[in-house]
Every structure is written in C-alpha cells, then in structure tokens.
C-alpha cells in the first residue's frame, strides 16, 4: 500500500518523531509505514488521518491504481 505520509509531513514541517508523538506510536512505526515496509492497522490509519486532518483515502493509496475505480462486478 502506497501512502503520502512523507509529503504531508514535509508540508507541515513535522519530523517522523513529531508525527509519531501525535499518533502515540514509535518513530520506527512511522518510518516503516513511510517506507512501505509496514501497512498500519485500520485504527492507526484513522489516527494518522486525524493527525493530518484528512481522510484515510487521501493518505493511503492501493498499490494498483485501477482498484480505486474498478466497477462493482
């Protein structure tokens, strides 16, 4: 799963440690999410979205772009 964490964090001039403190997780967790080594749980994804005042969909993107626009079958 891709994400825009680094971009959003840079826009706010937050360090990984700042974001980690806001989300009550370790900096390693934020780093692992940013580098796509770890997909966060849904509660953590909501917490991250809240920290940026965005929705989950605006931050986390599926690997395959076509899955977002796929019609129901």
């Amino acid at each position, binding site marked *: 799963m891709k994400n825009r964490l680094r971009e959003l964090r840079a826009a706010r001039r937050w360090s990984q*440690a700042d974001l*980690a403190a806001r989300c009550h997780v*370790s*900096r390693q*967790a934020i780093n692992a999410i940013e580098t796509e080594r770890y997909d*966060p*749980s849904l509660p953590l994804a909501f917490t991250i979205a809240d920290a940026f005042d965005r929705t989950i969909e605006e931050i986390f993107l599926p690997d395959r772009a076509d899955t977002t626009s796929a019609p129901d079958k």
Partner: protein
Amino acid sequence: MTNPPQPDQVIRAARRAILFDGLPVIVLGGVALALGSSPDQSTAQKALWIAATAAFALAVAWVLLRAFRRADEYLRKVQLESMAVAFAAVLVGLQVATVLDSAGVVPLHQLTQLIVIGGLAIWLVTADLRTRFHR
C-alpha cells in the same frame, strides 16, 4: 505550547527495559542450568533445581508479557517475528539435543535449558537489532 513526548527517548527506554528485564532472566536461566548440571543430586538439590527452573519459566513469560504491553503495533510485529526465529532455533536445537541424548553424548535435561536460554537470547538480540537498524 506543550512539548509532545520524544519517541526516540521512549524507544530507547523501551529497549533498555527489555534488556533490564531480559538479562536477569538469562542469568536466572544460567543459575537453573548450573543447579541441574550434577547427575547425582539429593532431594533438596532437585527441589532447588525445579524451583529455579520454574522461576525461570515464569520470568520468561513475564518478560514477554511486559514487552508486548510496552510495544506499539509495529514493534509488536517485530517482536513476534523475532520470536518466530527464536522458536525455530529452539525447535532445531531440541531436535539435535534429542539425537545427542539418544547417542549418549550429552544428557537432554541439561541441554534443554541451554537451548531455551539460547532461544531467549536470540529473541532479544533479533528484536533489538531489527528496531535498531530499521530507522
């Protein structure tokens, strides 16, 4: 404006706490191992050995519980993966120890404790290295 807690400090404290918890447990395992090393033991010596081994097993469970409660979801995953590596090592070690015991090379009861201590050490070191180098 309030200062948020510094996660690096929290991580370092958590890592220290694991070592502070884990190292005495490994020492306790060594003591239990030493107490069980004599083949001819009196009843009192056996009771002491069993008590030390039971204390070691409980201490291992306590360390694991504390480590999991302390960790966030990512660190918990790292610890679980480290435990899986340690568990595999313990399984292989036990298999080798069983063969050695069958061949009459080394008594199994003594090797078992050594293997469990080794497994705990592998878990601690693997978890520590993974959190230390994945920055």
